[in-house]
């Protein structure tokens, strides 16, 4: 291994090592975390941050690297959350069987949905994926045959789960699981975007028509990215289920996909660390904003200030608008001056240069 490679891998390795050691550290950082670092509450928060870092990276593969704006990504997350919960609790399967089923459907389902929705490009793709995700939201709320638990959600039968993942005392194992998930997803997607299909994904993002002209079929490559990203997202859903010990219909709602989108844009779309940063930061801020909203300082404020501050989604939505306006490259672009970054680079992808889709009726002045 050359010196350069050592340096390149030393930073991330040290970061992972440091994160691995957190459950043995008992510092109490006031106001930053809900309790001492190795307390169950803090580890749970950190674990969720890591899960969403991983999920944000899967979304970035679609949005930042392939230029596909999906509004239905949470459908695959929800499959990972709901399917094992239903299999274990309602059908009394073993956890392994439930995982196998989830893995199987986690591949088949995005393949089918992707094959249909990738027939259109650009904005229409966004709307179509949103519609497909609505199936998940409908099933979760309507509660057919008492399968999904409706608005109450569905708790998992903990006797079927591996012992190490059950109970507050074992939160550190769940934390390590979440860390493992984030690291594996990051590694797979780094490898994928630097592989030869990965180059083609980025070429599609830059100019789909040109990839077609040189004899490639963009739709197949887009489907590949779609299935890979969705499958890894489903895996994240399973980790989330274990962490939350149950499925709740919130994960099926369209707002969840918007959350992934915000994470990626916040961190910086199509950059190495952007999605990870965005995922961690978003989830952390959401949790802290909620704590601030409940705190006595905010309750003392006049109504005009108190009302918006008590809604984390309002603060995050407003923050998102500000980022889009003033920092379109996301956090990863801070201090970088060279070339367009983040959203600016994705512009051509959304204008739909593919054949056949409604997006091709885009305005003729698109090349001005």
């Amino acid at each position, binding site marked *: 291994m050359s010196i350069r490679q050592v340096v390149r891998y030393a930073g991330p390795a040290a970061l992972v090592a440091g994160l691995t050691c957190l459950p043995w550290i008992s510092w109490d950082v006031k106001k930053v975390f809900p309790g001492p670092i190795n307390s169950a509450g803090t580890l749970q928060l950190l674990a969720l941050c890591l899960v969403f870092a991983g999920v944000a990276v899967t979304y970035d593969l679609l949005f930042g690297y392939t230029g596909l704006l999906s509004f239905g990504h949470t459908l695959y997350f929800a499959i990972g959350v709901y399917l094992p919960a239903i299999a274990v609790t309602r059908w009394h399967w073993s956890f392994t069987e439930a995982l196998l089923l989830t893995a199987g459907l986690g591949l088949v389902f995005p393949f089918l949905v992707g094959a249909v929705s990738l027939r259109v490009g650009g904005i229409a793709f966004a709307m179509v994926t949103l519609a497909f995700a609505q199936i998940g939201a409908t099933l979760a709320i309507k509660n057919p045959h008492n399968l999904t638990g409706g608005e109450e959600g569905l708790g998992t039968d903990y006797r079927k789960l591996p012992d190490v993942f059950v109970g507050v005392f074992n939160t550190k194992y769940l934390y390590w699981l979440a860390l493992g998930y984030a690291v594996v997803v990051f590694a797979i997607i780094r490898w994928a975007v630097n592989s030869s299909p990965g180059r083609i994904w980025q070429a599609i993002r830059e100019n789909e028509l040109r990839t077609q002209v040189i004899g490639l079929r963009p739709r197949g490559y887009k489907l590949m990215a779609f299935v890979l990203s969705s499958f890894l997202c489903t895996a994240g859903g399973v980790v989330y289920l274990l962490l939350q010990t149950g499925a709740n219909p919130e994960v099926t709602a369209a707002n969840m996909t918007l959350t992934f989108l915000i994470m990626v*844009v916040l961190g910086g779309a199509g950059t190495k660390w952007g999605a990870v940063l965005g995922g961690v930061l978003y989830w952390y801020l959401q949790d802290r904003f909620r704590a601030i909203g409940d705190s006595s300082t905010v309750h003392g404020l006049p109504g005009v200030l108190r009302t918006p501050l008590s809604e984390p989604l309002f603060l995050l939505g407003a923050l998102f608008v500000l980022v889009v306006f003033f920092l379109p490259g996301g956090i990863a672009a801070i201090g970088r001056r060279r070339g367009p970054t983040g959203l600016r680079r994705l512009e051509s992808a959304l204008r739909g240069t593919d054949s056949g889709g409604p997006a091709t009726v885009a305005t003729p002045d698109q090349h001005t």
Partner: protein
Amino acid sequence: MSTFVVLTVTGLGLGAMYFLIASGLSLIYGLMGVLNFAHGFFLTVGAYGTWWMESHLGGIGNISIRYLVSALIGMAIGGLVAALVELVLIRPLYQRHIEQVLVTVGLSLAATALVSAIWGGDERPFVTPAWMTDTTTIFGARIPNDRFLEIGVAIVVLLGLELFLRRTRYGLIIRAGAENRAMVTALGIDVRKAFTLVFAIGGVAAAVGGALSNVYFGQVVPDRGTSLLIFAFIVVVIGGLGSITGSAMAAVVVGVSQQYMNYYPQASWHIGNWGLGDISVVLLLGLVLLIRPRGLSGSLA
């Protein structure tokens, strides 16, 4: 037979609301290439504007007049909010479509959260004029009168929009702008005024939908707009992006088939509540995409 009539008319009433959102979405997309994610919020603005106004009008006139006045004010607020959104948030990002879409996403999240912070996240009851909840008997089916109101208003809006687009100078500019924006600008016409105009028109139409949704559902909730928006998207894609008449046709198909599928399979085979109405509409969308990726009418406004 009577069930069939009830389902059909209810479906048409629902379709009317889908159309009121979809027409604005379609118009905005056709001219500007912007997918307006905050369009559902305009409906919520109309719904809450109407509700708030009606509960503050006190005993002025009778309830029908109060509803009419509140609905008109709700529409005005909806149009105003939409025009403001265009001026403040969309215009500075001119020609950056992806950022425009993302800004509307953020706005939709933040604004819905704000509404729920101010008036609470739970349903608030809406006082409806009695004659609207009364029923009329057609072919042995008892149908609430408000369904006819919704259908009638949607038809008026459809005809009004078509007349506006075909017969007025502004309509001509909008159609020409959708066709070739650069050419219209080169002819010395400021297309950006038309942008604000379509946003305002779309906002008013959505707010009309909001005022009607108060009657249809009998209550207001902060996420009414966002949940109807998803089906409006389906309507827009099935109808063909940018086509108003296409949206109208698709809204009828979507609303009616949703009602049939919600009722018949469950009633005849006792298969439990799978929400088949919603699911079948999504599958219909998939089918349309497989057969005609451009939607039912692949033309511009």
